[in-house]
């Protein structure tokens, strides 16, 4: 018996969302009085022994370089086989792009019930019940998994990473890799920007900024906070900003620790993309903007005055604290 956590990597580096999944899996293992083990596919530059600090006793690896590209069919086959070999009764994923691609496939292969989008530890007091977000973050559902093997895909940024001392034992899994039917021909990464879906802090601008020429102050604030940039749908539709920055129901759904919305009124379609954020700050000239109802902090004021001033004050504090 074990809890097996899939530790997802990109370009040889284990993703931050996977550390959350590892910490979560470790806590699930404690609840079930068993061990937490991890699976890493592909070649990684990280030393996987260090996954021990997230409470992982054993890391299973299949280091074939072909596995640095995700093929859901190949991955599902390997993960399911690894789950069998390690006697896993719970398999944990992060519900990031990779988790969305493979968690359901692995669950189907294992004939295991799946909770995708989990946001809390399972309640194992009677049965196995996992809380997940539903209705785009407006509600929760408690789902009972009724199969011997359970698959949980954890929402990014919904569970704290816990770190302790410890090294993991590394074991190379000897499993035949099925032939891939998917041939990757091109990868296009946006360089020099923090990926929106991975960011801790997101600074977002809306129509209230009046035009693309006014984004300098948004970029300056984002730079001070090491934040990713985002925008509302009208801004992307007007081509003021690239489409990969669009958050909302039709764009990306994100859940950063801090979301700063500037000149965005907060239409329900926009909220559907951001209301899983931990803290929301709204800066808007209109005191009636619906976004203030979902915000933790707000300033009713002119962004063109408030934002540069905010960046200046933040920089002052950063400067002060560095001494």
């Amino acid at each position, binding site marked *: 018996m074990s809890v097996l956590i899939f530790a997802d990597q*990109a370009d040889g580096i284990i993703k931050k969302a996977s550390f959350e999944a590892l910490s979560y899996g470790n806590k699930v293992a404690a609840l079930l009085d068993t061990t937490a083990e991890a699976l890493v596919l592909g070649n990684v530059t990280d030393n996987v022994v260090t996954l021990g600090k997230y409470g992982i006793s054993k890391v299973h690896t299949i280091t074939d370089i072909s596995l640095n*590209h995700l093929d*859901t*069919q190949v991955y599902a086959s390997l993960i399911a086989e690894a789950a069998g070999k390690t006697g896993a009764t719970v398999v944990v994923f992060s519900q990031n*792009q990779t988790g*969305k*691609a*493979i968690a*359901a*496939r692995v*669950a*189907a292969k294992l004939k295991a*019930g799946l909770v*995708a*989008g989990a946001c809390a530890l399972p309640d194992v007091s009677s049965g196995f019940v996992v*809380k997940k*977000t*539903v209705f*785009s*973050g*407006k*509600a*929760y*559902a*408690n789902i*009972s998994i*009724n*199969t011997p093997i359970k698959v949980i895909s954890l929402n990014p940024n919904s569970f704290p990473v816990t770190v302790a001392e410890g090294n993991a034992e590394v074991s190379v899994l000897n499993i035949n890799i099925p032939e891939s039917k*998917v*041939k*990757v*021909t091109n*990868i*296009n*990464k*946006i360089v020099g920007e923090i990926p929106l879906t*991975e960011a801790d802090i997101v600074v977002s601008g809306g129509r209230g900024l009046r035009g693309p020429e006014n984004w300098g102050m948004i970029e300056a604030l984002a730079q*001070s906070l090491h934040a990713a940039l985002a925008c509302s749908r009208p801004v992307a539709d007007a081509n003021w900003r690239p*489409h990969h920055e669009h958050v909302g*129901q*039709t764009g990306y759904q994100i859940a950063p620790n801090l979301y700063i919305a500037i000149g965005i009124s907060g239409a*329900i*379609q926009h909220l*559907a993309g951001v209301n899983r954020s931990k803290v929301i*700050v*709204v800066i808007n000239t209109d005191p009636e903007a619906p976004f203030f*109802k*979902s*915000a*933790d*902090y*707000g300033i*009713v*004021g002119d962004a063109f005055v408030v934002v540069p001033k*905010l960046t200046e*004050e*933040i920089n*002052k*504090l950063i400067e002060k*604290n560095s001494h």
Partner: protein
Amino acid sequence: MKILVCLSKSPDTTSKIAFKDNNTLFEDAGVQWIINPYDEWYALVRAIELKEKDVSTTIHLITVGNADCDAIIRKALAIGGDEAIRINVQNNDSYYIAAQIAEVAKQNNYDLILTGKESIDYNTSSIGGTIAELLDMPFISLATKLVIEGSNAIVTRDIEGGEETAEVSLPLVLSCAKGMAEQRIPNMRGIMAARTKPLKVLEPAAIETFTSVVNYEVKPAKTSVKLIAADNVAELARLLHEEVKAF
């Protein structure tokens, strides 16, 4: 080419989310049902575009649900598609739903099975991957572009911080995201034509369910926003530092 488009009924985005029967059921009184936007805008419309390029293409639409779904299926048929199938059962388990669709797909040799990237009610992103597993087909999720070249598909998908393009042979299952196509409004001719398009109602296959809903909870509203005066921006910086620990 034969395409299957999977559609789900979901409450309109602006619906009030509430629950009844001791929080075990979604309160559907007064709710406006729509086609799950990602299924409609991206999966269905891209299928229609492919048919416009190659008129020999057949498009089947499928949904799993009770007769309440018929209105949204007719709307989907008005946008496009040749015929629709409804599997007459109400269930929340994503494996159960996907397996019902896979049963139908097994008998029809589809070249392409399209879903939206997720439903806006249960947000699981799991139907496409499950169908692909049950049919032993490749599956690419969060696809933003699709080009068909003979018996191959060239698919671009979102990855963290960028995109990846891959070539894969048909048959194939795809979950579709923004970029795949643009929303279309049905025109009068489409609405008229949809009335006579076939809508087959099938009884469900015997499939197990793996999960069940215990109950729901509405997310508590934020207590109230802490407003900071526009001439006291330093205070917001202090709060972001001390309370939010943003830097």
